[in-house]
């Protein structure tokens, strides 16, 4: 093997108590691709300039997404990482694997690529970092032979992801893993064949704690909620929090309720459920005494995005409550309606949230055939915004 590249600047990043990507990469510096990759990065640190070229179009037959082409602009100096394409692999719902499966993936990746991985990317996929164009088809075939598939990239449905819901969490108001899997399977064409103005992300959270941050990071967030009343076990409340101590119910729960719907007289907790916004705060704090109601489902929110182009947007409510496990067909219908409109009138690289801002929520709802509802305003109860149409005036 060629000489190990010296990387004094990168080595600074191995000092200190925190995890370091340099430490991890150095463990496999015997691999020539990794050796050149470290050398290239050190060079970038010295020159204060990135040496990855913008974009690249590579892929596997039949798919338009899943592989992100990467080339460096120093092929003579760092030939081993001149082609260094990224592969996105659709993760299992909730990120459940057994170690045997991960070993199989790593074996394939060591054979076909650099061996470097990122578990997981921010969309949720397993990310396999660095391979050559000639390895793409064999790699794809190896992955499918162990029942894995590529994820989304480009202007398509990005790999849907979900919290691990009912598998681990008692608050999940619907089976996030099942719904995530079903939606992924239903939209396979849209996932593998980019045809939108820009990316579209689905994320599924079982409750308003929103462990996958769906409201901030997905165009379509499906967040578990309930319709009836929060269940209170007054006896458990006394036992664990009043006598058991540790929680100042008035200060930590009642006064922190965003809609001020709770009262506490020192012995009895009461909730005005009609004012509850299902934020989960009281349930999180008094988890042994409070539970979500029985009539559970999900709210569908739309328009969230991180600030890559334009600013960050939080998703807002489109459908306040739906029995999602029994109504997936209805969701598909609404989503496809939205895609048609956005596909027709959306600008290139315009996310759905930006599109709705541009055309106006009123026009958007009219076009996709949804009735306006009070929950759709971005700050319910504090916003005087109302809908009216001149034509409809008597």
């Amino acid at each position, binding site marked *: 093997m060629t000489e190990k590249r010296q990387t004094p600047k990168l080595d600074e990043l191995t000092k200190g108590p925190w995890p370091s990507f340099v430490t991890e990469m150095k463990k496999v510096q015997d691999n020539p691709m990794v050796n050149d990759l470290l050398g290239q990065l050190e060079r970038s640190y010295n020159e204060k300039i990135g040496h990855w070229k913008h974009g690249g179009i590579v892929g596997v037959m039949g798919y*338009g997404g899943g592989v992100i082409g990467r080339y460096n602009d120093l092929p003579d100096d760092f030939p081993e990482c001149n082609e260094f394409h990224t592969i996105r692999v659709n993760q299992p719902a909730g990120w459940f694997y057994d170690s045997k499966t991960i070993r199989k993936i790593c074996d394939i990746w060591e054979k076909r690529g650099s061996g470097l991985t990122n578990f997981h990317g921010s969309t949720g996929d397993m990310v396999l970092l660095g391979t050559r164009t000639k390895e793409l088809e064999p790699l794809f075939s190896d992955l499918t032979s162990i029942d894995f598939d590529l994820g989304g990239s*480009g202007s398509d449905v990005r790999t849907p992801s979900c919290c691990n819901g009912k598998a681990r969490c008692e608050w999940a108001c619907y089976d996030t893993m099942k719904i995530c899997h079903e939606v992924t399977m239903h939209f396979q064409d849209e996932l593998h*064949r980019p045809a939108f103005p820009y990316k579209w992300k689905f994320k599924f959270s079982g409750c308003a704690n929103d462990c996958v941050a769906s409201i901030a990071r997905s165009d379509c967030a499906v967040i578990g909620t309930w319709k009836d009343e929060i269940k209170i076990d007054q006896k458990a409340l006394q036992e664990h929090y009043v006598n058991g101590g540790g929680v100042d119910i008035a200060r930590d729960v009642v006064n922190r309720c965003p809609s001020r719907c709770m009262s506490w007289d020192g012995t009895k907790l009461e909730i005005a459920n009609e004012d509850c916004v299902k934020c989960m705060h009281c349930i999180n704090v008094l988890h042994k005494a409070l539970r979500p109601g029985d009539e559970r489902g999900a709210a569908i929110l739309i328009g969230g995005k991180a600030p890559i182009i334009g600013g960050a947007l939080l998703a807002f409510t489109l459908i306040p409550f739906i029995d999602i496990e029994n109504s997936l067909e209805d969701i598909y219908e609404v989503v496809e309606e939205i895609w048609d409109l956005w596909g027709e009138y959306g600008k290139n690289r315009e996310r759905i949230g930006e599109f709705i801002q541009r055309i106006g929520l009123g026009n958007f709802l009219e076009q996709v055939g949804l009735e306006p509802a009070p929950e759709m305003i971005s700050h319910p109860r504090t916003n005087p915004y109302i809908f009216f149409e001149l034509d409809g005036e008597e």
Partner: protein
Amino acid sequence: MPDFMVGDKAYEVDEDGFLQQPDLWNKEVAEAMAKTEGVEELTEDHWKVVNFLRDYYVEYQVAPMIRKLCKSTGFKLNKIYELFPSGPAKGACKIAGLPKPTGCV
């Protein structure tokens, strides 16, 4: 930059095989490039797509959005992938001699 050979003529292409000088494109280049993208023979349907892309590019100096391509040719996206297995961007645009489309990964 590598060269793409058609007969004894060399065309400069980028690392993904896209023509560096789109003006040099001709039918022979298209036919030769098709073979590198899993298309053995360019049929009438292939040409419908290629010609549309070419005309659009010549007029607007940019590749059309995929929805526009589907609407104008009357082919559904799945049909485009049947014709060009490596897809409209990597396959069809390359064969039509367009510069590499840019986009978000």
